[in-house]
Each structure stands twice: as structure tokens, then as C-alpha cells.
């Protein structure tokens, strides 16, 4: 456990490269399948759903990093967060592109009509739009430019974005009464947000109740 807990900078960098490539595989798969005509009878639906799914995985994954770090004490996890967030944006962007291109053929008026008329698209669009400033301010220069505090405030938008993404997914699935997956995602996200609420107000006691820490436990210390 010690070895995993205290990964060297070198190891973390290697891990990041590895995950960078791994996270591209869903896209590679789509491209290869498209060429091989293996996307099923309705390829565009397949691509839409698949990119949406991966966007959601990365959104939730990003949100999970801090609680996971506290739980395990693996502080290097935070160094994967930016990439995870950017991949979330990347797959949301692809998801949006399919909608804008293959569904609406760049017909702005038609797309706008769709966005304002249909709540699930409104929410999906909001998720995408809110992610843009976060993606744009994700590099070190922007963190310095904004200053840590302001940057952090801006990036707390994540707490709005991820639930919006889940709501979008929920409404998509609700039309066909397929709520199992949305419930799973909603539960995970609720838990991840709840951990934060509790941890900021009453973290010490909360961790003790869960048996994750003690009165002078590491999870408490690392926040200064």
C-alpha cells in the first residue's frame, strides 16, 4: 500500500501517459467500427449514445477523485483530475458535435429551436456550455492568471455540471422508462456531493462514523 500511496512524480507521469492513451480508446473504437460498418443498424444513434456515456463516465470520475483521494490517502490522484475533466469535455464535445452535425446539419435555427423546446436538450446544452470555461481555464497559466481562489470558485461549477449531465441522461432514458442506469449514476453523484457537504461542515465526525478516519486522522490533516 505504501508503494501505491507514495507514487513518485516519475511514476505518476507514466500513469498519466498511460491513462491518456487509454481514454482515447473509446474514440478509436468508434472510428474503427465506423470504417468496418460495425456500429449496428443505426450508427449515428450508437455514436451519440456512446460518446454521451463516456462523457458521463469521465464527469463522474472527475468528481470522484477528491473523495477517493481522501479515502485512500493517494494524494497523487489529484494529478489525474485535470486530464479526467478534459476528457469529460472532449467526449461531451464529440457528443455535441454529433448532435449539431449529423442530427441538425449545422442548421443553427433548427438546433436552437430544439434546445429551447426540449428540456433534456436544454440541460445537455447547459452541461456543455458550462464546461467550456472550465476547459479553457484548465492549464497552469490560467490558474496563475486567475489566482487559486478564483480558479477554485470557477471550477466549483463542476458541482452543477455533473448533476446536469446526469439529469440529461435521466430524461433521455425516462422516455422509455429505462431508469436503472440513471438511478445508479444519480446515486453515485449524490454520494460524491454529499461527502463534500458533510466533510466541509463536519468532516471529522463524519469520517469517524464511517470509520475512515479518527480524531487526528490523515483525511483531516491533509486539508491543512
Amino acid at each position, binding site marked *: 500500500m505504501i508503494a501505491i500511496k507514495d507514487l513518485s512524480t516519475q511514476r505518476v507521469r507514466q500513469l498519466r501517459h498511460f491513462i491518456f492513451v487509454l481514454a482515447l480508446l473509446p474514440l478509436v473504437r468508434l472510428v*474503427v467500427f465506423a470504417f468496418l460498418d460495425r456500429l449496428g443498424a443505426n*450508427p449515428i444513434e450508437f455514436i451519440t449514445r456512446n460518446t454521451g456515456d463516456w462523457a458521463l463516465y469521465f464527469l463522474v470520475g472527475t468528481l470522484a477523485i477528491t473523495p477517493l483521494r481522501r479515502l485512500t490517502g493517494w494524494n497523487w490522484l489529484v494529478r489525474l483530475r485535470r486530464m479526467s475533466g478534459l476528457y469529460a469535455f472532449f467526449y461531451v464535445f464529440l457528443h455535441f458535435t454529433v448532435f449539431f452535425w449529423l*442530427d441538425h446539419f449545422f442548421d443553427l435555427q433548427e438546433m436552437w429551436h430544439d434546445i429551447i423546446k426540449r428540456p433534456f436538450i436544454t440541460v445537455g446544452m447547459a452541461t456543455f456550455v458550462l464546461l467550456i470555461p472550465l476547459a479553457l481555464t484548465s492549464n497552469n497559466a490560467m490558474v496563475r492568471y486567475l489566482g487559486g481562489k478564483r480558479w477554485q470558485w470557477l471550477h466549483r461549477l463542476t458541482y452543477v455540471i455533473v448533476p446536469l449531465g446526469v439529469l440529461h441522461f435521466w430524461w433521455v432514458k425516462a422516455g422509455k422508462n429505462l431508469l436503472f442506469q440513471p438511478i445508479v449514476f444519480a446515486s453515485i453523484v449524490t454520494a460524491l456531493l454529499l461527502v463534500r457537504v458533510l466533510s466541509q461542515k463536519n468532516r471529522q465526525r463524519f469520517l469517524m462514523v464511517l470509520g475512515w478516519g479518527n480524531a487526528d486522522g490523515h483525511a483531516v490533516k491533509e486539508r491543512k
Partner: protein
Amino acid sequence: MLIKIRPDQIDIPLSSEITPQQIYAGRRAFMGQMAAGALAGGALLGAGSAAAQSTGGNGRKLPARLNNAYAVMDKPTAYQDATSYNNYYEFGTDKAEPARTAGTLKTNPWSVSIEGEVKKPMTLDLDALMKLAPLEERIYRLRCVEGWSMVIPWIGYSLSALIKKADPTGAAKYVEFVTLADKKQMPGLSDPILNWPYTEGLRLDEANHPLALLTLGMYGEVLPNQNGAPVRVIVPWKYGFKSAKSIVKIRFLKEQPKTAWSVYAPNEYGFYSNVNPEVDHPRWSQASERRIGEDGFFARKRKTLMFNGYNDVAGLYTGMDLKRYF
């Protein structure tokens, strides 16, 4: 039955629009070869050829005479697509699932009981159904409420033939189709997604319209399980979910029956559910559709036609506000 069609209702394409079957059937194989060439990957090549087109299944042949009066000139959807992309929740909610899981459906023996407001209640087995009227092949457009469409050569006969045999009483105003709900055969029933059994219904005059097809086969064969074997209805001017699959009971009723999807979401799925580009589903537009296997990746979607192009049925709805009765 005498079928009257005015010449202007017959959709005659230009000869240049008709693509020989072997050419369009070869499209995918061609695409596969292109891809294999582009990628030049040995392992990928094998997968590519696996996607090559199959134009027929391995089901039992079901001879039928093509009824040209009821054959649209659109290119029929590839058999592979029509049998691997199915909404049949009793066998799973993913559209690829029924093709994998519907093998457990036992279609023989099978019987359909005819009940309710009829002078001759009866139970018909599959053999009786097959012989009730001459089998015809009809090529219909199929428009799913989700916004995609197919063109399928069905085999069957007008539902009106069966209605005539059942001889409804004067009180009968509606027909209800009750479908099989057997947990042993249908894994999807463990999910209470809809109130099983899945039921659908039509007004009696709709059911009597010659386009409404009692369907026993497709692509020259008996129905594959995932497509609603052994007997279903096809109502081509309505969204696909109106065309109930694997029917075990047909009831004639005085009152409009409750139908599966309209019970689940009355504001989204109406009793009539006629294909109508003017009435959007609350969550998506119905103005256009994607033709499966034909409208390519970068092709615009095609315009959806009122009554899915079957204007012949318009007379059934004279004076009705179809926005209200969607």
C-alpha cells in the same frame, strides 16, 4: 377483397431511381473492403468481412404472392438490420438484445383467441391463421416513434379477413391486441417497465382498413422471434409500437382499450399515434427520420410523411383534430 387504388396514389419511381438489389446489397461489403484497404490491418480485415450483407435468413420459407398495390418502391432494409435492431422489451431494452435473447420464445404450438364483442368467439392455431386468407407479400415503410425508419417486405393478409371471420357484433368499436407475457420465455418481463402483457389497440374501422396487416412472415420467411413471431399486426401509417408482436388474444371492445405505452406516458404516446410530422414527441421532433442502412452517415435525414405516406387512410380521421388525438 377488391383493392381500389387511384393511379395518383401509386408511387411510381423513375427507372433511374431503382437500384438493382445486388448493387445495394453489396454496399456494405464494398464499404468493408474500402475500410480494410484503408486500415490495411490483417486482424481488422476479418471483422470487416463479417459485416458483409446477408440478404435472407435461415428461417422456414413462407411462400406468398407479392401484392404490387401494397409495395412501396423504397429500397427494402437489409434483413440483417431489420432483424438485429428491434424494440421488443420483453426480450431486453437494448435494440440489439432481442436478436440474441428471443431464441427462448416458443412459437409452436401457438394459438390466438378471439374474444369479446364477436358473434363467433374462437381460438385459432397457427395453421388455421396461415390458411385463413391467401398470403401476400407487401412492402411497407415502418416508422418508429424514435425517429428512424425501415422498409420491410412483410407476409400476411389484411386483418379485415380475420375480423370478418370473427364477425364482430354491432357494439364492437375497438380491437385490442394482447401479446404474450411469459416470464419463462421472456427475460425482459422481470423489469416492470410496462404493465405486462403489452397491449395495443385500434379503432375497428382502422383495423378494417386493408393496409392493416395480420403478419406471419417477412423477407420470404416466417417471422423471426425478435420481430414478433409467430403472429403480429403491422399498421404502417402508425408508429411502430402500435404494431403489436407475438399476439395471443384479439379482443373486440365497446370502449377504447388502454394501450401499453399510452398508459406509461399519456402525454408522449397517444392511442392513435399516427405518423405525423406536425406533432412532435415532447422530447424530439417527428418532422424527419433516418432510414436505417440507407441514409448514410453524412446524409441529411429524410422528411417524415403524413401517415407515413399512406394518405389512403386520411378518410379514417375526417373531422378529427390530429394534434389533439395524437
